[in-house]
Protein backbone atom coordinates (compact mmCIF):
# COMPACT_ATOMS: atom_id res chain seq x y z
CA UNK A 1 0.00 0.00 0.00
CA UNK A 2 1.35 3.45 -0.94
CA UNK A 3 1.81 5.69 2.06
CA UNK A 4 3.16 8.56 -0.04
CA UNK A 5 1.70 9.47 -3.38
CA UNK A 6 2.39 12.60 -5.41
CA UNK A 7 0.41 13.38 -8.53
CA UNK A 8 1.56 15.87 -11.17
CA UNK A 9 3.44 17.77 -8.47
CA UNK A 10 4.80 21.19 -9.40
CA UNK A 11 6.66 23.82 -7.45
CA UNK A 12 7.57 27.04 -9.21
CA UNK A 13 9.62 29.91 -7.82
CA UNK A 14 9.69 33.44 -9.12
CA UNK A 15 13.23 34.70 -9.71
CA UNK A 16 12.97 38.23 -11.07
CA UNK A 17 11.17 37.98 -14.38
CA UNK A 18 11.80 34.28 -14.82
CA UNK A 19 10.09 31.30 -13.23
CA UNK A 20 12.17 28.44 -11.86
CA UNK A 21 10.48 25.05 -11.99
CA UNK A 22 12.04 23.33 -8.96
CA UNK A 23 9.61 20.44 -9.21
CA UNK A 24 8.07 19.81 -12.58
CA UNK A 25 5.24 17.31 -12.69
CA UNK A 26 6.52 14.58 -10.40
CA UNK A 27 4.43 11.46 -9.87
CA UNK A 28 5.90 9.32 -7.12
CA UNK A 29 4.50 6.50 -5.07
CA UNK A 30 6.28 5.12 -2.01
CA UNK A 31 5.10 1.88 -0.47
CA UNK A 32 5.15 1.06 3.22
CA UNK A 33 8.50 -0.42 4.33
CA UNK A 34 10.56 0.99 1.47
CA UNK A 35 14.13 2.28 1.89
CA UNK A 36 14.20 4.81 -0.91
CA UNK A 37 16.84 7.32 -1.89
CA UNK A 38 16.13 10.35 -4.06
CA UNK A 39 19.32 11.18 -5.88
CA UNK A 40 20.43 13.76 -8.39
CA UNK A 41 22.77 16.69 -8.85
CA UNK A 42 22.61 19.86 -6.76
CA UNK A 43 19.64 22.04 -7.69
CA UNK A 44 17.78 19.14 -9.23
CA UNK A 45 14.78 19.57 -6.91
CA UNK A 46 15.41 16.78 -4.35
CA UNK A 47 15.05 18.97 -1.28
CA UNK A 48 12.03 20.82 -2.68
CA UNK A 49 10.35 17.46 -3.33
CA UNK A 50 11.00 16.34 0.25
CA UNK A 51 9.73 19.71 1.58
CA UNK A 52 6.51 19.23 -0.37
CA UNK A 53 6.06 15.65 0.82
CA UNK A 54 6.75 16.77 4.41
CA UNK A 55 4.13 19.51 4.19
CA UNK A 56 6.76 22.20 4.79
CA UNK A 57 6.14 23.83 1.42
CA UNK A 58 3.05 24.27 -0.73
CA UNK A 59 2.87 22.98 -4.32
CA UNK A 60 2.10 25.30 -7.20
CA UNK A 61 0.09 22.49 -8.70
CA UNK A 62 -0.67 18.84 -8.03
CA UNK A 63 -1.26 16.95 -4.83
CA UNK A 64 0.56 15.07 -2.09
CA UNK A 65 -1.31 12.25 -0.44
CA UNK A 66 0.17 10.87 2.77
CA UNK A 67 -1.64 8.07 4.55
CA UNK A 68 -4.54 8.64 2.14
CA UNK A 69 -4.84 12.29 3.10
CA UNK A 70 -4.19 15.25 0.79
CA UNK A 71 -1.95 17.17 3.18
CA UNK A 72 -2.07 20.54 1.41
CA UNK A 73 -5.79 20.77 2.00
CA UNK A 74 -5.14 20.86 5.75
CA UNK A 75 -5.13 24.10 7.71
CA UNK A 76 -1.83 25.27 9.26
CA UNK A 77 -2.64 23.81 12.66
CA UNK A 78 -3.98 20.57 11.17
CA UNK A 79 -0.81 20.24 9.11
CA UNK A 80 1.42 20.79 12.18
CA UNK A 81 -0.56 18.14 14.00
CA UNK A 82 -0.40 15.82 10.98
CA UNK A 83 3.39 16.17 10.75
CA UNK A 84 3.66 15.51 14.45
CA UNK A 85 1.80 12.21 14.18
CA UNK A 86 2.67 10.90 10.70
CA UNK A 87 6.11 12.13 9.63
CA UNK A 88 9.53 11.82 11.23
CA UNK A 89 12.21 14.29 10.17
CA UNK A 90 15.96 13.87 10.11
CA UNK A 91 17.83 17.05 9.27
CA UNK A 92 21.21 17.42 7.63
CA UNK A 93 22.51 19.51 10.52
CA UNK A 94 20.89 17.27 13.21
CA UNK A 95 19.03 20.25 14.70
CA UNK A 96 18.57 18.86 18.17
CA UNK A 97 17.35 21.20 20.89
CA UNK A 98 20.65 22.23 22.53
CA UNK A 99 19.26 22.76 26.02
CA UNK A 100 17.76 19.27 26.25
CA UNK A 101 19.59 15.99 26.83
CA UNK A 102 19.52 13.20 24.23
CA UNK A 103 16.67 11.49 26.08
CA UNK A 104 14.75 14.75 26.51
CA UNK A 105 15.13 15.49 22.80
CA UNK A 106 13.57 12.13 21.98
CA UNK A 107 10.86 12.61 24.60
CA UNK A 108 10.05 16.11 23.38
CA UNK A 109 8.05 14.93 20.33
CA UNK A 110 6.04 12.57 22.52
CA UNK A 111 5.39 15.39 24.98
CA UNK A 112 3.92 17.40 22.13
CA UNK A 113 1.72 14.38 21.42
CA UNK A 114 0.54 14.36 25.02
CA UNK A 115 2.04 10.98 25.99
CA UNK A 116 2.45 10.18 29.68
CA UNK A 117 5.82 10.66 31.36
CA UNK A 118 6.20 6.94 31.98
CA UNK A 119 5.44 6.03 28.37
CA UNK A 120 7.76 8.76 27.08
CA UNK A 121 10.67 7.70 29.23
CA UNK A 122 10.27 4.02 28.34
CA UNK A 123 10.09 4.62 24.61
CA UNK A 124 12.91 7.19 24.60
CA UNK A 125 15.25 4.73 26.31
CA UNK A 126 14.19 1.96 23.91
CA UNK A 127 14.90 4.17 20.91
CA UNK A 128 18.24 5.37 22.27
CA UNK A 129 19.14 1.74 22.87
CA UNK A 130 18.12 0.95 19.29
CA UNK A 131 20.53 3.60 17.99
CA UNK A 132 23.23 2.50 20.44
CA UNK A 133 23.17 5.57 22.68
CA UNK A 134 21.58 4.42 25.91
CA UNK A 135 24.80 5.32 27.76
CA UNK A 136 24.62 8.87 26.38
CA UNK A 137 20.96 9.42 27.28
CA UNK A 138 21.64 12.27 29.68
CA UNK A 139 24.22 14.07 27.62
CA UNK A 140 23.37 17.28 25.83
CA UNK A 141 23.99 17.66 22.07
CA UNK A 142 27.21 19.61 22.58
CA UNK A 143 28.61 16.64 24.49
CA UNK A 144 27.94 14.25 21.60
CA UNK A 145 29.81 13.73 18.32
CA UNK A 146 28.14 14.61 15.01
CA UNK A 147 27.39 10.94 14.34
CA UNK A 148 25.89 10.49 17.79
CA UNK A 149 23.75 13.59 17.36
CA UNK A 150 22.42 12.27 14.07
CA UNK A 151 21.58 8.96 15.72
CA UNK A 152 19.66 10.88 18.40
CA UNK A 153 17.90 12.72 15.56
CA UNK A 154 16.85 9.34 14.08
CA UNK A 155 15.57 8.25 17.49
CA UNK A 156 13.67 11.53 17.76
CA UNK A 157 12.19 11.07 14.29
CA UNK A 158 10.90 7.64 15.32
CA UNK A 159 9.58 8.74 18.71
CA UNK A 160 6.13 9.64 17.45
CA UNK A 161 5.76 6.27 15.65
CA UNK A 162 5.46 8.03 12.28
CA UNK A 163 4.26 6.48 9.04
CA UNK A 164 7.63 7.24 7.48
CA UNK A 165 10.88 9.14 8.03
CA UNK A 166 12.04 11.92 5.70
CA UNK A 167 15.77 12.53 5.75
CA UNK A 168 17.53 15.20 3.73
CA UNK A 169 21.19 14.34 3.19
CA UNK A 170 21.43 12.77 6.67
CA UNK A 171 25.07 11.77 6.22
CA UNK A 172 26.32 14.99 4.66
CA UNK A 173 28.09 16.13 7.83
CA UNK A 174 29.31 12.73 9.02
CA UNK A 175 32.61 10.92 8.72
CA UNK A 176 32.79 7.44 7.17
CA UNK A 177 32.52 5.51 10.40
CA UNK A 178 29.54 7.54 11.61
CA UNK A 179 27.89 7.21 8.21
CA UNK A 180 28.24 3.44 8.28
CA UNK A 181 26.93 3.26 11.85
CA UNK A 182 23.94 5.43 10.98
CA UNK A 183 23.12 3.48 7.85
CA UNK A 184 23.35 0.21 9.79
CA UNK A 185 20.88 1.51 12.33
CA UNK A 186 18.41 2.87 9.78
CA UNK A 187 18.68 -0.27 7.67
CA UNK A 188 18.08 -2.43 10.70
CA UNK A 189 15.03 -0.36 11.71
CA UNK A 190 13.75 -0.68 8.17
CA UNK A 191 14.34 -4.42 7.97
CA UNK A 192 13.27 -5.42 11.46
CA UNK A 193 10.52 -2.91 12.25
CA UNK A 194 9.38 -2.13 8.71
CA UNK A 195 9.93 1.62 9.08
CA UNK A 196 9.74 3.47 5.76
CA UNK A 197 12.66 5.78 4.97
CA UNK A 198 12.79 8.34 2.18
CA UNK A 199 16.16 10.06 1.71
CA UNK A 200 17.67 12.65 -0.48
CA UNK A 201 21.38 12.09 -0.83
CA UNK A 202 24.58 12.55 -2.79
CA UNK A 203 26.41 9.98 -0.69
CA UNK A 204 27.41 6.88 -2.62
CA UNK A 205 27.41 4.81 0.58
CA UNK A 206 23.74 5.67 1.13
CA UNK A 207 22.99 5.02 -2.55
CA UNK A 208 24.65 1.61 -2.24
CA UNK A 209 22.42 0.65 0.70
CA UNK A 210 19.12 1.97 -0.75
CA UNK A 211 16.59 -0.54 -2.06
CA UNK A 212 15.11 1.93 -4.52
CA UNK A 213 16.75 4.83 -6.32
CA UNK A 214 14.73 7.72 -7.72
CA UNK A 215 16.91 9.90 -9.94
CA UNK A 216 15.71 13.50 -10.21
CA UNK A 217 17.02 16.12 -12.61
CA UNK A 218 15.59 19.52 -13.51
CA UNK A 219 12.62 18.84 -11.26
CA UNK A 220 11.65 15.66 -13.10
CA UNK A 221 12.09 11.99 -12.35
CA UNK A 222 14.55 10.67 -14.91
CA UNK A 223 14.72 7.14 -13.58
CA UNK A 224 13.19 5.01 -10.85
CA UNK A 225 14.89 1.69 -10.14
CA UNK A 226 14.40 -0.97 -7.51
CA UNK A 227 17.31 -3.22 -6.55
Amino acid at each position, binding site marked *: MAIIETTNLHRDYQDGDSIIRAVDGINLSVEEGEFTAIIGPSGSGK*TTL*LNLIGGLDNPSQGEVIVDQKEIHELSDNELINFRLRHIGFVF*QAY*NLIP*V*LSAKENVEFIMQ*LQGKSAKERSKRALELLKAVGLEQQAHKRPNELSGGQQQRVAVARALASKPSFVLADEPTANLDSKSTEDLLDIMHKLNQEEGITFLFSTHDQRVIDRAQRLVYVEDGKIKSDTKK
Partner: protein
Amino acid sequence: MKTLFNIAWRNIWRNKLRSSVVIISIMLGIWAGIFVSAFSFGLNDQRKDALLKNQFSHIQVHKAEWKDQMEVEYLLSEAKAILSSLSSKTEIAAVAPRVIANGMAATAHYSGGVQIYGIEAEAENKLTGLAAKIDSSGKYFSKKGRNPILIGAALAEKLEVKPGSKVILNFSNANNDLVSASFKVKGIYTEVSSTIEKMKVYVRANDLQELLGIGAEDYHEIAAFAENEADSDSLKTWLQGQYPNQLVESWKDLAPELAYSDSIMTQMLFIIIGIIMLALSFGIINTMLMAVLERRKELGVLMCVGMSKGRVFSMIIIETLYLSLIGGPLGIILGYFSVEQGKLSGLSLEVFSDGLASYGIGTIIYPSVPSSFYFGTAAIVFIMTLLASIYPARHALKLNPIETIRTI
Protein backbone atom coordinates in the same frame (compact mmCIF):
# COMPACT_ATOMS: atom_id res chain seq x y z
CA MET B 1 3.23 22.97 29.34
CA LYS B 2 5.78 21.76 31.88
CA THR B 3 8.13 21.07 28.99
CA LEU B 4 7.78 24.62 27.73
CA PHE B 5 8.66 25.98 31.16
CA ASN B 6 11.60 23.61 31.30
CA ILE B 7 12.94 24.55 27.86
CA ALA B 8 12.29 28.25 28.43
CA TRP B 9 14.19 28.16 31.73
CA ARG B 10 17.17 26.46 30.12
CA ASN B 11 17.02 28.78 27.12
CA ILE B 12 17.46 31.91 29.19
CA TRP B 13 20.70 30.49 30.61
CA ARG B 14 22.17 29.73 27.18
CA ASN B 15 23.67 33.18 27.18
CA LYS B 16 24.35 33.68 30.86
CA LEU B 17 26.00 37.08 30.48
CA ARG B 18 23.20 38.57 28.42
CA SER B 19 20.44 37.22 30.64
CA SER B 20 22.31 38.27 33.77
CA VAL B 21 22.71 41.82 32.48
CA VAL B 22 18.96 42.05 31.81
CA ILE B 23 18.08 40.52 35.17
CA ILE B 24 20.45 42.84 37.03
CA SER B 25 19.15 45.89 35.16
CA ILE B 26 15.57 44.93 36.07
CA MET B 27 16.62 44.34 39.67
CA LEU B 28 18.40 47.69 39.94
CA GLY B 29 15.59 49.52 38.17
CA ILE B 30 12.98 48.12 40.53
CA TRP B 31 15.19 48.71 43.56
CA ALA B 32 15.78 52.32 42.52
CA GLY B 33 12.05 52.81 41.87
CA ILE B 34 11.09 51.41 45.27
CA PHE B 35 13.78 53.34 47.10
CA VAL B 36 12.93 56.64 45.42
CA SER B 37 9.26 55.94 46.16
CA ALA B 38 10.04 55.10 49.79
CA PHE B 39 12.04 58.30 50.07
CA SER B 40 9.15 60.30 48.62
CA PHE B 41 6.65 58.58 50.88
CA GLY B 42 8.92 59.25 53.87
CA LEU B 43 9.36 62.89 52.90
CA ASN B 44 5.63 63.36 52.45
CA ASP B 45 4.74 61.50 55.64
CA GLN B 46 7.22 63.51 57.69
CA ARG B 47 5.99 66.78 56.24
CA LYS B 48 2.39 65.76 56.87
CA ASP B 49 3.12 64.55 60.41
CA ALA B 50 5.05 67.73 61.25
CA LEU B 51 2.31 69.99 59.91
CA LEU B 52 -0.45 68.04 61.65
CA LYS B 53 1.44 67.95 64.92
CA ASN B 54 2.55 71.57 64.93
CA GLN B 55 -0.08 73.39 62.96
CA PHE B 56 -3.31 71.72 62.01
CA SER B 57 -3.94 68.75 64.33
CA HIS B 58 -6.61 66.36 63.02
CA ILE B 59 -9.60 68.48 63.91
CA GLN B 60 -10.05 72.15 64.68
CA VAL B 61 -13.14 73.94 65.94
CA HIS B 62 -13.73 77.69 65.55
CA LYS B 63 -16.57 80.13 65.50
CA ALA B 64 -17.76 80.24 61.89
CA GLU B 65 -16.72 83.88 61.40
CA TRP B 66 -13.17 83.17 62.57
CA LYS B 67 -12.29 81.64 59.24
CA ASP B 68 -12.82 84.94 57.42
CA GLN B 69 -11.51 87.28 60.07
CA MET B 70 -9.40 86.38 63.08
CA GLU B 71 -10.89 88.93 65.46
CA VAL B 72 -10.72 88.67 69.23
CA GLU B 73 -14.50 88.85 69.50
CA TYR B 74 -15.07 85.60 67.55
CA LEU B 75 -14.94 83.31 70.52
CA LEU B 76 -16.28 79.77 70.64
CA SER B 77 -19.67 79.94 72.30
CA GLU B 78 -19.69 76.37 73.60
CA ALA B 79 -16.01 75.83 74.31
CA LYS B 80 -16.46 74.07 77.64
CA ALA B 81 -19.04 71.65 76.23
CA ILE B 82 -16.95 70.95 73.13
CA LEU B 83 -13.88 70.22 75.25
CA SER B 84 -15.93 67.92 77.43
CA SER B 85 -17.40 66.06 74.39
CA LEU B 86 -14.01 65.58 72.78
CA SER B 87 -12.30 64.53 76.01
CA SER B 88 -14.89 61.82 76.60
CA LYS B 89 -14.47 60.34 73.13
CA THR B 90 -12.17 57.30 73.12
CA GLU B 91 -11.07 57.95 69.53
CA ILE B 92 -9.53 61.28 70.64
CA ALA B 93 -5.94 61.13 71.87
CA ALA B 94 -5.48 64.77 72.91
CA VAL B 95 -7.42 67.98 72.89
CA ALA B 96 -6.38 71.53 73.71
CA PRO B 97 -8.10 74.93 73.70
CA ARG B 98 -6.33 78.07 72.49
CA VAL B 99 -6.73 81.80 72.68
CA ILE B 100 -5.19 83.48 69.66
CA ALA B 101 -4.24 87.06 68.95
CA ASN B 102 -2.27 88.68 66.17
CA GLY B 103 0.26 91.22 67.31
CA MET B 104 3.82 92.46 67.32
CA ALA B 105 6.77 91.24 69.34
CA ALA B 106 9.43 93.80 70.03
CA THR B 107 12.77 94.28 71.75
CA ALA B 108 15.30 97.04 71.44
CA HIS B 109 16.83 95.22 68.48
CA TYR B 110 13.86 94.13 66.37
CA SER B 111 10.11 94.05 66.08
CA GLY B 112 7.95 91.82 63.92
CA GLY B 113 4.49 90.36 63.48
CA VAL B 114 3.60 87.24 65.46
CA GLN B 115 0.65 85.01 66.28
CA ILE B 116 0.24 84.85 70.03
CA TYR B 117 -1.10 81.53 71.23
CA GLY B 118 -2.57 81.49 74.68
CA ILE B 119 -2.41 77.84 75.70
CA GLU B 120 -3.36 75.51 78.53
CA ALA B 121 0.14 74.23 79.27
CA GLU B 122 -0.64 70.61 80.09
CA ALA B 123 -3.22 70.07 77.33
CA GLU B 124 -1.06 71.75 74.68
CA ASN B 125 1.94 69.70 75.65
CA LYS B 126 -0.11 66.53 75.30
CA LEU B 127 -1.34 67.68 71.88
CA THR B 128 1.86 69.02 70.32
CA GLY B 129 4.69 67.92 72.64
CA LEU B 130 5.69 71.54 73.01
CA ALA B 131 7.72 71.03 76.24
CA ALA B 132 10.11 68.67 74.48
CA LYS B 133 10.86 71.28 71.84
CA ILE B 134 12.30 73.75 74.34
CA ASP B 135 16.08 73.86 74.44
CA SER B 136 18.03 73.12 77.58
CA SER B 137 18.53 76.78 78.52
CA GLY B 138 14.83 77.30 79.17
CA LYS B 139 11.79 75.68 80.76
CA TYR B 140 8.19 74.95 79.95
CA PHE B 141 5.31 76.81 81.57
CA SER B 142 4.47 76.36 85.21
CA LYS B 143 1.85 78.13 87.29
CA LYS B 144 4.51 80.33 88.82
CA GLY B 145 5.81 83.62 87.43
CA ARG B 146 4.21 86.53 85.65
CA ASN B 147 3.67 86.60 81.89
CA PRO B 148 6.05 83.90 80.75
CA ILE B 149 6.49 83.44 77.00
CA LEU B 150 7.94 80.75 74.74
CA ILE B 151 9.38 81.91 71.44
CA GLY B 152 10.86 80.14 68.45
CA ALA B 153 14.60 79.93 67.93
CA ALA B 154 14.46 81.86 64.64
CA LEU B 155 12.54 84.72 66.24
CA ALA B 156 14.76 84.69 69.32
CA GLU B 157 17.76 85.20 67.08
CA LYS B 158 16.14 88.20 65.43
CA LEU B 159 14.95 89.68 68.74
CA GLU B 160 18.34 88.83 70.29
CA VAL B 161 16.75 87.35 73.39
CA LYS B 162 17.45 84.37 75.62
CA PRO B 163 15.64 82.88 78.63
CA GLY B 164 15.15 85.61 81.19
CA SER B 165 15.06 88.41 78.58
CA LYS B 166 12.03 90.63 78.22
CA VAL B 167 9.86 90.92 75.13
CA ILE B 168 7.07 93.43 74.57
CA LEU B 169 3.89 92.15 72.91
CA ASN B 170 1.49 94.63 71.32
CA PHE B 171 -2.00 93.62 70.24
CA SER B 172 -5.63 94.77 70.26
CA ASN B 173 -7.97 93.64 73.06
CA ALA B 174 -11.70 92.86 72.88
CA ASN B 175 -12.52 96.56 73.01
CA ASN B 176 -10.15 97.26 70.15
CA ASP B 177 -7.82 99.10 72.46
CA LEU B 178 -4.10 98.62 71.94
CA VAL B 179 -2.53 96.56 74.69
CA SER B 180 1.15 96.50 75.36
CA ALA B 181 2.51 93.97 77.82
CA SER B 182 5.91 92.84 78.92
CA PHE B 183 6.65 89.07 78.85
CA LYS B 184 9.64 87.24 80.20
CA VAL B 185 11.20 84.62 77.96
CA LYS B 186 10.75 81.27 79.72
CA GLY B 187 12.14 79.10 76.95
CA ILE B 188 13.11 78.94 73.31
CA TYR B 189 11.56 76.20 71.23
CA THR B 190 12.75 74.71 67.96
CA GLU B 191 10.56 73.40 65.18
CA VAL B 192 11.35 71.62 61.93
CA SER B 193 9.74 74.62 60.26
CA SER B 194 11.61 77.90 60.58
CA THR B 195 8.43 79.70 59.46
CA ILE B 196 6.61 78.50 62.56
CA GLU B 197 9.56 79.50 64.76
CA LYS B 198 9.34 83.04 63.40
CA MET B 199 5.55 83.31 63.61
CA LYS B 200 4.31 81.60 66.75
CA VAL B 201 4.83 82.65 70.32
CA TYR B 202 3.20 80.85 73.24
CA VAL B 203 1.88 82.40 76.40
CA ARG B 204 -0.37 81.03 79.12
CA ALA B 205 -4.08 81.15 78.21
CA ASN B 206 -5.17 82.93 81.40
CA ASP B 207 -2.53 85.66 80.92
CA LEU B 208 -3.72 86.35 77.41
CA GLN B 209 -7.42 86.10 78.35
CA GLU B 210 -6.84 88.72 81.02
CA LEU B 211 -4.98 91.05 78.67
CA LEU B 212 -7.60 90.61 75.95
CA GLY B 213 -10.40 91.26 78.42
CA ILE B 214 -12.23 88.00 77.79
CA GLY B 215 -13.51 85.33 80.17
CA ALA B 216 -11.43 82.56 81.71
CA GLU B 217 -13.33 79.95 79.70
CA ASP B 218 -13.30 81.82 76.44
CA TYR B 219 -11.24 80.35 73.60
CA HIS B 220 -10.88 80.92 69.87
CA GLU B 221 -9.80 77.47 68.88
CA ILE B 222 -10.01 73.90 70.03
CA ALA B 223 -7.62 71.48 68.38
CA ALA B 224 -7.79 67.71 68.73
CA PHE B 225 -5.67 64.77 67.72
CA ALA B 226 -7.37 61.48 66.91
CA GLU B 227 -5.91 58.15 67.96
CA ASN B 228 -6.05 57.23 64.30
CA GLU B 229 -5.72 59.84 61.58
CA ALA B 230 -8.13 57.88 59.38
CA ASP B 231 -10.92 58.69 61.86
CA SER B 232 -10.54 62.44 61.28
CA ASP B 233 -13.44 62.73 58.86
CA SER B 234 -15.88 60.64 60.87
CA LEU B 235 -15.01 62.55 64.08
CA LYS B 236 -15.47 65.82 62.26
CA THR B 237 -18.93 64.74 61.07
CA TRP B 238 -19.86 63.59 64.55
CA LEU B 239 -18.71 66.80 66.21
CA GLN B 240 -20.35 69.00 63.62
CA GLY B 241 -23.60 67.15 64.30
CA GLN B 242 -23.21 67.83 68.02
CA TYR B 243 -22.39 71.52 67.56
CA PRO B 244 -23.97 72.74 64.34
CA ASN B 245 -23.31 76.39 65.16
CA GLN B 246 -19.53 75.94 65.27
CA LEU B 247 -17.21 75.43 62.35
CA VAL B 248 -15.63 71.98 62.63
CA GLU B 249 -12.86 71.21 60.17
CA SER B 250 -10.61 68.24 59.62
CA TRP B 251 -7.00 68.69 58.55
CA LYS B 252 -8.12 67.96 54.97
CA ASP B 253 -10.29 71.10 55.08
CA LEU B 254 -7.58 73.15 56.74
CA ALA B 255 -4.77 72.02 54.41
CA PRO B 256 -6.35 70.73 51.19
CA GLU B 257 -3.01 70.81 49.34
CA LEU B 258 -1.56 68.52 52.01
CA ALA B 259 -4.51 66.13 51.66
CA TYR B 260 -4.19 66.19 47.87
CA SER B 261 -0.46 65.50 47.83
CA ASP B 262 -1.09 62.68 50.28
CA SER B 263 -3.80 61.14 48.16
CA ILE B 264 -1.94 61.32 44.83
CA MET B 265 1.39 60.16 46.25
CA THR B 266 0.74 56.45 45.63
CA GLN B 267 -0.53 56.96 42.08
CA MET B 268 2.35 59.30 41.28
CA LEU B 269 4.94 56.84 42.50
CA PHE B 270 3.31 53.95 40.64
CA ILE B 271 3.66 56.10 37.51
CA ILE B 272 7.39 56.49 38.27
CA ILE B 273 7.73 52.71 38.65
CA GLY B 274 5.79 52.33 35.39
CA ILE B 275 8.15 54.70 33.58
CA ILE B 276 11.19 52.81 34.90
CA MET B 277 9.65 49.53 33.74
CA LEU B 278 8.80 51.06 30.36
CA ALA B 279 12.47 51.94 29.89
CA LEU B 280 13.49 48.47 31.02
CA SER B 281 10.93 46.95 28.66
CA PHE B 282 12.90 48.17 25.67
CA GLY B 283 15.96 46.38 27.02
CA ILE B 284 13.88 43.24 27.47
CA ILE B 285 12.43 43.49 23.96
CA ASN B 286 15.92 43.97 22.52
CA THR B 287 17.33 40.99 24.40
CA MET B 288 14.47 38.67 23.50
CA LEU B 289 14.47 39.77 19.89
CA MET B 290 18.17 38.96 19.70
CA ALA B 291 17.45 35.58 21.31
CA VAL B 292 14.71 34.88 18.73
CA LEU B 293 16.85 35.95 15.78
CA GLU B 294 19.77 33.86 16.98
CA ARG B 295 17.51 30.83 17.23
CA ARG B 296 15.64 31.26 13.96
CA LYS B 297 16.75 27.88 12.70
CA GLU B 298 16.00 26.13 15.95
CA LEU B 299 12.54 27.65 16.17
CA GLY B 300 11.97 26.67 12.53
CA VAL B 301 12.92 23.08 13.35
CA LEU B 302 10.55 23.04 16.30
CA MET B 303 7.73 24.12 14.02
CA CYS B 304 8.76 21.54 11.41
CA VAL B 305 8.66 18.64 13.83
CA GLY B 306 5.24 19.55 15.13
CA MET B 307 5.45 22.34 17.70
CA SER B 308 2.43 24.55 17.16
CA LYS B 309 2.80 28.28 16.73
CA GLY B 310 0.87 28.75 19.97
CA ARG B 311 3.51 26.76 21.83
CA VAL B 312 6.37 28.67 20.19
CA PHE B 313 4.62 31.93 21.14
CA SER B 314 4.12 30.72 24.71
CA MET B 315 7.73 29.60 25.00
CA ILE B 316 9.06 33.06 24.11
CA ILE B 317 6.57 34.70 26.50
CA ILE B 318 7.66 32.36 29.29
CA GLU B 319 11.34 33.05 28.62
CA THR B 320 10.69 36.78 28.85
CA LEU B 321 8.65 36.40 32.00
CA TYR B 322 11.43 34.38 33.59
CA LEU B 323 13.85 37.29 33.15
CA SER B 324 11.49 39.62 34.99
CA LEU B 325 10.28 37.06 37.48
CA ILE B 326 13.89 36.70 38.63
CA GLY B 327 14.94 40.36 38.35
CA GLY B 328 11.65 41.83 39.65
CA PRO B 329 11.46 39.96 42.98
CA LEU B 330 15.20 40.45 43.54
CA GLY B 331 14.68 44.19 43.03
CA ILE B 332 11.67 44.16 45.36
CA ILE B 333 13.59 42.23 48.05
CA LEU B 334 16.58 44.56 47.70
CA GLY B 335 14.21 47.54 47.86
CA TYR B 336 12.50 46.12 50.96
CA PHE B 337 15.75 45.65 52.85
CA SER B 338 17.05 49.08 51.78
CA VAL B 339 13.84 50.69 53.01
CA GLU B 340 13.93 48.75 56.29
CA GLN B 341 17.55 49.80 56.84
CA GLY B 342 16.62 53.38 55.93
CA LYS B 343 13.83 53.29 58.52
CA LEU B 344 16.37 52.47 61.21
CA SER B 345 19.18 54.82 60.32
CA GLY B 346 17.37 57.52 58.31
CA LEU B 347 18.87 59.44 55.42
CA SER B 348 20.62 62.64 56.32
CA LEU B 349 19.88 65.64 54.13
CA GLU B 350 21.81 68.05 56.30
CA VAL B 351 23.10 70.00 53.30
CA PHE B 352 19.50 70.91 52.38
CA SER B 353 18.46 71.74 55.96
CA ASP B 354 17.51 75.36 55.27
CA GLY B 355 15.30 74.51 52.30
CA LEU B 356 13.70 71.57 54.08
CA ALA B 357 13.04 73.62 57.22
CA SER B 358 11.04 76.15 55.21
CA TYR B 359 8.79 73.26 54.13
CA GLY B 360 8.46 71.97 57.66
CA ILE B 361 10.54 68.88 57.04
CA GLY B 362 13.38 67.58 59.21
CA THR B 363 16.86 66.88 57.85
CA ILE B 364 16.72 63.14 58.56
CA ILE B 365 14.31 61.40 56.21
CA TYR B 366 12.99 57.98 57.14
CA PRO B 367 11.90 56.16 53.97
CA SER B 368 8.75 54.10 54.14
CA VAL B 369 6.32 52.47 51.75
CA PRO B 370 3.00 50.76 52.44
CA SER B 371 3.23 47.00 51.95
CA SER B 372 0.60 47.22 49.22
CA PHE B 373 3.14 49.21 47.19
CA TYR B 374 5.37 46.15 46.89
CA PHE B 375 2.47 44.11 45.50
CA GLY B 376 1.55 46.93 43.14
CA THR B 377 5.15 47.11 41.92
CA ALA B 378 5.20 43.33 41.37
CA ALA B 379 1.98 43.63 39.34
CA ILE B 380 3.46 46.44 37.20
CA VAL B 381 6.61 44.36 36.56
CA PHE B 382 4.51 41.37 35.51
CA ILE B 383 2.18 43.35 33.23
CA MET B 384 4.95 45.38 31.58
CA THR B 385 7.02 42.26 30.97
CA LEU B 386 4.04 40.48 29.51
CA LEU B 387 3.53 43.39 27.13
CA ALA B 388 7.25 43.51 26.32
CA SER B 389 7.26 39.81 25.48
CA ILE B 390 4.57 40.09 22.84
CA TYR B 391 6.72 41.69 20.15
CA PRO B 392 9.56 39.13 20.13
CA ALA B 393 7.03 36.30 20.48
CA ARG B 394 5.06 37.61 17.49
CA HIS B 395 8.33 37.89 15.58
CA ALA B 396 8.97 34.20 16.29
CA LEU B 397 5.53 33.35 14.92
CA LYS B 398 6.29 35.07 11.64
CA LEU B 399 9.28 32.81 11.01
CA ASN B 400 8.86 30.58 7.98
CA PRO B 401 10.22 27.13 8.86
CA ILE B 402 11.39 26.55 5.29
CA GLU B 403 13.31 29.81 5.17
CA THR B 404 14.85 29.25 8.57
CA ILE B 405 16.15 25.75 7.98
CA ARG B 406 16.55 25.97 4.18
CA THR B 407 16.55 22.21 3.99
CA ILE B 408 14.45 19.70 5.86
